[in-house]
């Protein structure tokens, strides 16, 4: 139980950094530099240390479509690099589909009930509404699966889970699927049977629950605002496009003014392009992460519930044992002590995971919001550059005209 408290890493993604949007711009370069500076100064996230001690690297990429007589589906390449003894080889490369990730998650939940398992992107998508094979959808899903796997691989306990090993190494996962479905049913029955009446939930877990509820609310609000902004920007874009064309059509009836008018029309068009990019960036990179956190909150809440159950079970048995003890003076049965251990273990695991989750959340949102700021800055930079080059062009022409006049 003790080892859980040693790992204070921020659960940062290993492998390639998440931000891939603007490789060459000054601002993203500065952003990376600043981020590193910040992390070195941050005692809670010994990023540098953790990176050096990390011995398991996983990546999800390369989506491919498979067409068979029964169905069409996408698989992803899952690559592993490791120096751990639990793995026979230092490198692995397998193909997995969403179903396989789902299997892994269920196995992890079952085998590590006291731990918070990171969420998967949504399983079901309405066939008519969302195109499951569109580039954007696949890209977004893949990023979420990558994040999921990295979070598991970074977890000090979960990363050693044999099911993870199987997932990362076995060529053909299909044989295991059947077993997974059966075991899932079994577990859920067991969980429902236990009573929920708690004597006294420790305050810290109550606070966690409240925090999650409020945080959920805030996330919902932020998601709504982000969507509203997207909508407003889209309407602005429509008008802006029209606006640009008016300049171009006016240029047609002018001679001296043709160049300046076309120039302004051109700048407006450039700004339209930049705005479109901003909108795409927001819907691909920002909104999915917000939604993923909502799922994360739900996972966390379900773990809290399980903890409550385990405590309720212990309290129930304890009560029964105490009554019996009063009657026939038998010593405290072993199973009650086992139950108590179980609860204490659960509490400790949960606390550690909570801290990790909070730390991850802080890092993730810092990255998310910084990314959002960067996208906006980048958008304005593009627009500014366009207008500045127009002024240079027009002013050069002006001096050109003046010199030709005086000559």
């Amino acid at each position, binding site marked *: 139980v003790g080892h859980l408290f040693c790992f204070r890493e921020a659960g940062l993604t290993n492998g390639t950094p998440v931000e891939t949007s603007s490789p060459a711009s000054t601002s993203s370069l500065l*952003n990376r530099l*600043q*981020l590193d500076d*910040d992390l070195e100064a941050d005692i*809670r996230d010994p990023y540098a240390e953790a990176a050096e001690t990390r011995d398991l690297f996983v990546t999800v990429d390369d989506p491919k479509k498979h067409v068979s007589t029964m169905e069409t589906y996408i698989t992803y390449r899952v690559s592993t690099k490791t120096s751990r003894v639990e793995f026979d080889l230092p490198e692995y490369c397998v193909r997995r589909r969403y179903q396989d990730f789902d299997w892994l998650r269920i196995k992890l939940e079952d085998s590590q009930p006291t731990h918070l398992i990171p969420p998967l992107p949504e399983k079901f998508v309405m066939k008519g509404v969302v195109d499951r094979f569109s580039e954007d959808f696949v890209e977004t899903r893949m990023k979420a699966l990558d994040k999921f796997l990295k979070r598991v691989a970074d977890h000090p306990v979960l990363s050693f889970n044999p099911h993870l090993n199987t997932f990362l190494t076995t060529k053909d996962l299909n044989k295991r699927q059947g077993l997974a479905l059966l075991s899932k049913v079994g577990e859920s029955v067991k969980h429902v049977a236990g009573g929920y009446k708690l004597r006294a939930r420790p305050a810290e877990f109550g606070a966690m629950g409240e*925090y999650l509820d*409020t*945080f959920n609310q*805030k996330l919902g*609000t*932020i998601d709504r*605002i982000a969507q*509203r*902004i997207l909508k*407003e*920007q889209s*309407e*602005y874009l429509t*008008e*802006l496009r*029209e*606006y640009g064309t*008016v*300049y171009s*059509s*006016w240029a047609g*009836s002018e001679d*001296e*003014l043709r160049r*300046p*008018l076309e*120039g*302004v029309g051109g*700048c407006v068009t450039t700004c339209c392009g930049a705005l479109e990019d901003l909108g795409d960036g927001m819907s691909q990179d920002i909104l999915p992460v917000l939604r993923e956190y909502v799922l994360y909150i739900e996972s966390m809440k379900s773990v809290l519930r399980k903890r409550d159950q385990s405590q309720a079970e212990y309290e129930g048995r304890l009560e029964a044992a105490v009554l019996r003890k009063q009657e026939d003076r038998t010593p405290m049965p072993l199973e009650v002590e086992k139950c108590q251990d179980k609860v204490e273990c659960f509490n400790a695991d949960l606390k550690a995971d909570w801290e990790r989750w909070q730390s991850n959340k*802080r890092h993730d*949102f*810092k990255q998310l*919001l*910084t990314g959002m*700021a*960067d996208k*906006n*800055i980048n958008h*304005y*930079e593009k*627009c*500014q550059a366009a*207008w*500045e080059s*127009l*002024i240079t062009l*027009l*002013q050069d022409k*002006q001096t050109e005209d003046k010199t030709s006049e005086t000559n």
Partner: protein
Amino acid sequence: SQSANVMSPRELSLRFLPMLCGVTAQMLEEGSTLLRRMEICVAEAEKRNGKNTVNMQETFTVYLVETRPMDAVAEGRNQAPDSLWRRYSEFELLRNYLLVTYPYIVVPPLPEKRAEFVWHKLSADNMDPDFVERRRVGLENFLLRVASHPVLSNDKILHHFLIEEHGWKEVVYETGFQAKADSRLRALSATFRVRNPDKRFMEMKHYSDELQSHTSQLLRARARVADRLYGVYKVHGNYGRVFSEWSAMEKEMGDGLQSAGHHMDAYAASIDDILEEEEHYADQLKEYLFYAEALRAVCRKHELTQFEFEMASQELVSKKQQHEELSTGIVRTFSFKGMTNKLFGQEAPEQREARLKLLEDLIAEGEEDVQEKTVEEHVERAWVDMHRFKEQKDKDLREALINYAVMQISMCKKGIQMWSNAKECFLKM
């Protein structure tokens, strides 16, 4: 009511002088326009109460027109300017007088009578302080343009307008300019029936239509864009509120979130000033929208003079023909007189003499009327002014576009600043 602008009206007019007026040192050198001798500005606006033409109480705005001799300014004598109050309707009267008196000049336009092309936030109310302020600037611009015009600046009525507060209206009416105004119907008829208008003028008229169409399209589109942009910025203000609420439940993240929220609020608020400044650009476009109308008026005047010349020429030809017929007895064309003469015999010699005399008088009159000179004069003078107008327009609009680009750059810089500030706060989370 004192305007709440940071800049004084004088500073404002000096700032916009090159932009709005196109009056440069170079122009002041060429020709001795009024502006060279006299400094003019519309310094203030005030509300007044009074009775209107139907004897009902009304509130209206008056504008203070200040003038100062240029040599006093040059010598640094801090002389107090002469001033008088004028209403918008008096400016309109002045302009109407100039339009009728100088039909070959593209007369500078007044600022709009009512607020048009408004986007949702702007008030369409004539009493709105922002509207009044922009109108004040527009009226000043009008006076500066007129006073720097090589022809218009010499007009006595203009001088009176600037110097004589009372009795000016009577002086204007006394010129009888209203009687000289062309009837709309006649002008319209000329447009349709003129046979040989000057091609250049027809092209110019076509151009004026294009200019009017494009500037009004642009103004409409710009207003819609402004409306949408306003919405985008303001929604960001919601981030401010939610970050603030969220920060209350966080420990390490709290401060960063809270300050970032403030920056989001600032970002949302920044759009107000940005769009306020853009209104100046819209005003510059509007000026040329109205200028297009003035240009078309000059072209129409040409059509009218040409038409009248054609009509008069036709009349003269017909009279000469009648004279010839009557004097020679040879009927070239069919006429009822000719027919009746044949049928009922010719008229008596005295009557014939009388008619011949009448025709001769009419022909003499007609020959005076048919002075191609009128048409040519108008064409010459108008062509000069249209050329001057074109150069002014090209210069002004080019500068307006450059200034628009400058405004856009400023907006981008502000946006970068705000988001960078927010980003710094996020990094501290």
